């Protein structure tokens, strides 16, 4: 594949597009598919076929996630420019579409009309306030069509990296961009890359961590489903930069659609000479294989993930040594999360400086968040770093439904914490979130209103951690189970002050002593809710025990320890 060949594919695809009058884009990501968007496409295509010649110049296309999942299934119609009427090209989005609407949308589109009743306005902050880099193609291109990706500028970053840049140049751009790991850790990506690049080895590996598992998080899934070639391009650039020839995508088996699209994308890229041997007539070879996770959250931890790819039980091992020096099959291994990989093609295309121009001093670029819970606009957003939580929740997310009051937002999943209302003006960046007692995490944001009990929220996440603990190290295995028991007692209002003290003690030990990130961060939801909502914990304690056998007050000796202890 030469730059010219790539350009030609893009031009051809564009020309084919230009032959069409109208395009009807139907979201085929998991959320809209679960509400029958596949049937909508079939019905629309059947209707167009019935129309004969009239329908030929309109195309129904399956695209990826448009973001606003709560209004799905979403359909977007591209109307061409109408010079006679003095109108430019126009995009109209329809919301809450069901198969019954298929026929009327097709009829209206072919006639150049819109259906005002079904229109989802796109001039609302949800759409206008976003800054889309990772999701730039989501909802526009057909994720199963490599030509579409190429026409949108895809693989040009890879081809220019291979033909015009040295591996050091690529690493330099990534370093300049200030990109930090989007999986949650926030480790500087450029530094990670240069560490792997500097390590001498006969074989190195690149691994893309697509084992997204935080409750309420679906960022990576949307990217994988909507723009899988982006990951392949990012990984191949990474392989070139660090000197790896073999890569794995570790994707959880619970994402069948993402797996299907990744498989197709890998085979297309191989066919187009964008994977395989001697890419762009250079000596660089690169292969990508999929590995499916069997449903263990801990396999998102890099050393557990490596063990799982190696075919072993997915349990973490102590670090150091870090995978950058001793990783997959004992070889230096670069592990990046989906979103990190998906940012790479943009960096090589537009330069590191361009990404560094977005965001705050220490947190550059954009971040994809999944808005879930008590919020009007449920779905996926991509925003510049440094935006405030208030802007995300009240402007982009359009506030809390049913006039309820915002109570807290949970970020970072089971490793994160809750941020209360008085911290809403805090900028969203790695440092500020950490200061507020939570983490950036992979991008889940669960919004809660006044009906949520924070002790129950902590209990929920602890139950998750207890279920997902691999059981290897003692503090996580026993600590999470013990903490869950105590939180359940609190939710049942049968706990005592001693239980609360013990909970705090267990938080401390589990955080300090656990082997991997899962255990080390498992107490975070408890610690942050304890910090901001301690009154709720106090309210969850029972009063004095006066059970059978309690000693009458008269027998209590002054100065003796309180005789009525908890049972």
């Amino acid at each position, binding site marked *: 594949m030469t730059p010219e060949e790539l350009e030609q594919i893009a031009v051809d695809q564009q020309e084919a597009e230009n032959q069409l009058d109208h395009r009807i884009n139907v979201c085929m990501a998991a959320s809209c598919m679960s509400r029958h968007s596949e049937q909508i496409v079939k019905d629309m295509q059947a209707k167009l076929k019935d129309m004969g010649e009239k329908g030929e110049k309109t195309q129904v296309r399956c695209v990826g996630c448009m973001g606003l999942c709560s209004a799905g299934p979403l359909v977007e119609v591209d109307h061409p420019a109408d010079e006679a009427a003095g109108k430019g090209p126009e995009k109209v989005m329809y919301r809450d579409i069901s198969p019954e609407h298929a026929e009327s949308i097709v009829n209206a589109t072919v006639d150049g009309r819109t259906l005002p009743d079904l229109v989802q306005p796109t001039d609302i902050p949800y759409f206008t306030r976003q800054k889309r880099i990772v999701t730039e193609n989501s909802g526009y291109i057909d994720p199963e069509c490599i030509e579409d990706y190429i026409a949108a500028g895809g693989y040009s970053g890879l081809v220019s990296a291979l033909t015009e840049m040295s591996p050091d140049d690529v690493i330099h751009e990534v370093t300049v961009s200030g990109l930090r790991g989007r999986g949650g850790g926030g480790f500087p990506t450029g530094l990670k890359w240069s560490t792997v690049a500097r390590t001498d080895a006969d074989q190195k590996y690149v691994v893309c961590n697509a084992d997204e598992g935080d409750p309420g998080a679906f960022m990576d899934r949307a990217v994988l489903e909507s723009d899988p070639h982006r990951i392949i391009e990012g990984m191949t650039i990474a392989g070139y930069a660090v000197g790896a020839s073999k890569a794995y995508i570790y994707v959880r088996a619970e994402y069948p659609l993402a797996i299907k699209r990744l498989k197709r994308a890998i085979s297309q890229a191989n066919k187009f000479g964008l994977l395989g041997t001697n890419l762009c007539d250079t000596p660089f070879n690169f292969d990508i294989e999929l590995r499916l996770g069997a449903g263990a959250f801990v396999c998102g931890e890099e050393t557990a993930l490596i063990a799982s790819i190696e075919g072993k*039980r997915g349990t973490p091992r102590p670090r*150091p040594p870090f995978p950058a020096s001793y990783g997959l099959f004992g070889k230096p291994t670069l592990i990046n999360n989906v979103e990190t990989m998906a940012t790479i093609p943009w960096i090589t295309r537009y330069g590191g400086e361009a990404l560094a121009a977005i965001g705050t001093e220490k947190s550059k670029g954009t971040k994809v968040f999944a808005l879930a819970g008590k919020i009007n606009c449920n779905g996926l957003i991509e925003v510049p770093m440094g935006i405030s939580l208030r802007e995300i929740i009240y402007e982009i997310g359009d506030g809390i439904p049913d006039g309820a009051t915002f109570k807290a937002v949970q970020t970072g999943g089971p490793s994160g914490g809750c941020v209360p209302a008085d911290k809403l003006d805090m900028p969203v960046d790695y440092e500020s979130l950490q200061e507020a007692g939570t983490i950036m995490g992979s991008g889940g944001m669960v919004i809660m209103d006044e009906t949520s009990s924070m002790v129950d929220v902590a209990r929920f996440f602890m139950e998750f951690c207890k279920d997902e603990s691999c059981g290897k190290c*003692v503090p996580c295995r*026993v600590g999470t189970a*013990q903490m869950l028991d105590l939180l359940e007692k609190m939710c049942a209002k049968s706990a005592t002050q001693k239980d609360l003290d013990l909970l705090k003690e267990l938080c401390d030990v589990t955080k*300090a002593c*656990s082997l991997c990130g899962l255990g080390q961060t498992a107490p975070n939801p408890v610690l942050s809710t304890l910090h901001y909502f301690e009154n709720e914990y106090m309210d969850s304690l029972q009063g004095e025990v006066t059970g059978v056998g309690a000693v009458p007050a008269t027998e209590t000796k002054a100065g003796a320890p309180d005789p009525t202890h908890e049972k």
Partner: protein
Amino acid sequence: MARQKLPPTQTLTMKIDDVDVTAKPGQTIQDVARDHDIEIPGLCYIDGLTIWGACRLCLVEVEGMRKLLAACSTEVAEGMIVHTDTERLRRYRKMVIEMLFAERNHVCSVCVSNGHCDLQAMAVQLGVDHVHLPYMNPDVKVDSSHDRFRLDHNRCILCTRCVRVCGEIEGAATKGVGGRGINARIINDLNMPWGDSQTCTSCGKCVHICPTGALVEKGTAAAEMKKHRSFLPYLTVMRES
């Protein structure tokens, strides 16, 4: 985990518990501490098997590191300053021992390993005179299906010494870990009764390497099960040479 073998000419200097010590590159904190008669607690570590790093008893403080590091798995570096016995570490270690006692049903008084148990010894060494965590009293089973040996999950601390010795020394790989989290259990083959295992060679290494009364010889009464571990360093040395 493979340890790097570096030229023996190099020597590092470092400090453990305010004592200046020398070390060879590639040694772990545990190795160096032992060379200098500094004892660091531990249950999952045992000479001759791969490092597991799971009991967390050997966690130490290293100056300049935010996190505690496991002495068994952390390689030393020039100028490292290590503290192995701080108030904080003692508190954490006691808690880990308590967690182990609370997790399963360790009723020492009726255990065949009573008095010959690493967990008991560690409790004494670390000053655990009671368990202030609630006992979890799980309903776990005893596998007596093997002719000569017994696996009592009530007394297992999941150190995986048995798993490692079976795979790495005996080469049978009968023992493994099934389930996860608090429900993790030592299993035989694909979670079948030990007596039905077709891979087990009945060598007994797992029994003698087990730190508690989880793996024992049948026919022993309370406090009778003494373990003999001298075979392991011997076997490892013989294989290396």
